[in-house]
């Protein structure tokens, strides 16, 4: 008969054994891992969506008004230059220690990527196509939604993939304000040299990036069937 106390201290994640990979850690800490992954996915998805909602109109404005384009691109490049560990603290006076701080910071980063890609996508629409639409009597708004944006969609989606994957990685830094999803587990793990937790959180982070990337790739296939049908033919 083994004593329960003895059994728990000799597990592969105990301080004396401290293995990198440990299945009993995954089982015993399952709830913590699941909730951290959920928080991580939630912060990432909301941030990228907020970034997208702001980026699309900004890109359309920049496309129509070239004078504003330099300002919009310049400002977003400056924000992108600021390291994440500095950007979150800079937002704290306005947003406090909350999930909002991380979401706004990450939305600003994805904004930069998305504005650039949307602009490139809109520029890639051939002039012939645009002139035909005008000749057929399309008003500017109708042309934007039924001609320009659909044709720009592959490049916009490519930007969305880049923004999502890098946001998953950057969310970990949110741990500076205690809202870092899996980053909270990493920060706690490094304080306690808890190897099983560090390894599991790192792997889950990369997996999450991979899964979200795959989801966008599939959405792209559904939204722009012509891009991949042409390739398989």
């Amino acid at each position, binding site marked *: 008969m083994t004593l329960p106390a003895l059994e728990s201290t000799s597990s592969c994640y105990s301080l004396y054994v401290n293995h990198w990979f440990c299945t009993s850690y995954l089982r015993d800490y399952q709830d913590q891992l699941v909730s951290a992954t959920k928080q991580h996915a939630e912060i990432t998805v909301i941030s990228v969506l907020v970034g997208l909602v702001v980026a699309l109109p900004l890109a359309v404005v920049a496309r129509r008004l070239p004078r504003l384009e330099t300002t919009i691109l310049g400002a977003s490049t400056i924000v992108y230059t600021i390291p*994440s560990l500095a950007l979150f603290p800079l937002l704290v006076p306005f947003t406090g220690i909350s999930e909002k701080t991380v979401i706004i910071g990450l939305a600003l980063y994805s904004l930069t990527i998305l504005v650039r890609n949307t602009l490139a996508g809109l520029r890639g629409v051939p002039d012939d196509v645009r002139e035909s639409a005008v000749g057929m009597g399309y008003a500017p708004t109708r042309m934007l939604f039924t001609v320009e944006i659909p044709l720009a969609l592959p490049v916009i989606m490519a930007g969305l993939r880049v923004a999502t994957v890098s946001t998953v990685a950057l969310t970990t830094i949110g741990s500076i304000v205690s809202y870092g999803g899996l980053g909270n587990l990493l920060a706690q793990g490094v304080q306690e040299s808890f*190897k099983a937790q560090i390894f599991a959180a*790192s792997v889950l982070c990369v997996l999450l990036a991979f899964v979200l990337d795959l989801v966008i790739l599939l959405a792209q296939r559904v939204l722009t069937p012509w891009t991949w049908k042409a390739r398989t033919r």
Partner: protein
Amino acid sequence: MIGDAFGYLLDGAHWSGSDGMLVELGQQLLLTFTALLLAAVVALPAALVLGHLGRGGFLAINVSNVGRAIPTFAVLILLSVGPLGTAVLGPFGRAGLATLVALTLFALPPLITNSYVGMTEVDRDTVEAAKGMGMTGSQLFFSVELPLATPLILTGLRLALVQVWATATIAALVAGPGLGNVITAGFYRSDYGKGLAGAIVVAAVAIVLEVTAALSERYADPLVRVQRRQRAMVAVA
């Protein structure tokens, strides 16, 4: 909180001394440029030769995609808790080796992808013309492809610089050296003025580095230099 931050920045005592911000700033700059230099020495020759030969494109492009998905925070922790440890490494400070290796790794993707793409994007007609003139492989490489690829190579260096500075800041989360320590010390002890002060310095240096790199990028582009010389000659005539 903003007032506290500027109060902290204006107090000279926080800048001087062996654990002052000037020492941390110097350490972080030293780490950043050492890592950038190491990464350039490793990545540039290989990526440029591969671009010249037109081989290994899949690898050169995908290294950036993979690099983006891997959190710098996780790599810094895995290296310092794992094999490299947190021992002091000369002027690089605590966890110097782990930090230096992580920074170098994250400088590689932008350098590799940009130099490779720079070489392969050189106008094919120009390359054919150079071959038709009887240029050898190395002549083609050094006097045609390399000058034409310079703008993209320099962009890669600038992107890597920004990336390395950001990663060097994160090193503080794993007890590494650098200005990130001011931020983490402030936030972990609820001294938000101090944390904000650190963030202001880190962000300001990041913007200075980016702007300096962008300006020297324009200055170092061989095509822009030739144009400037021509304009000067016209002015003299």
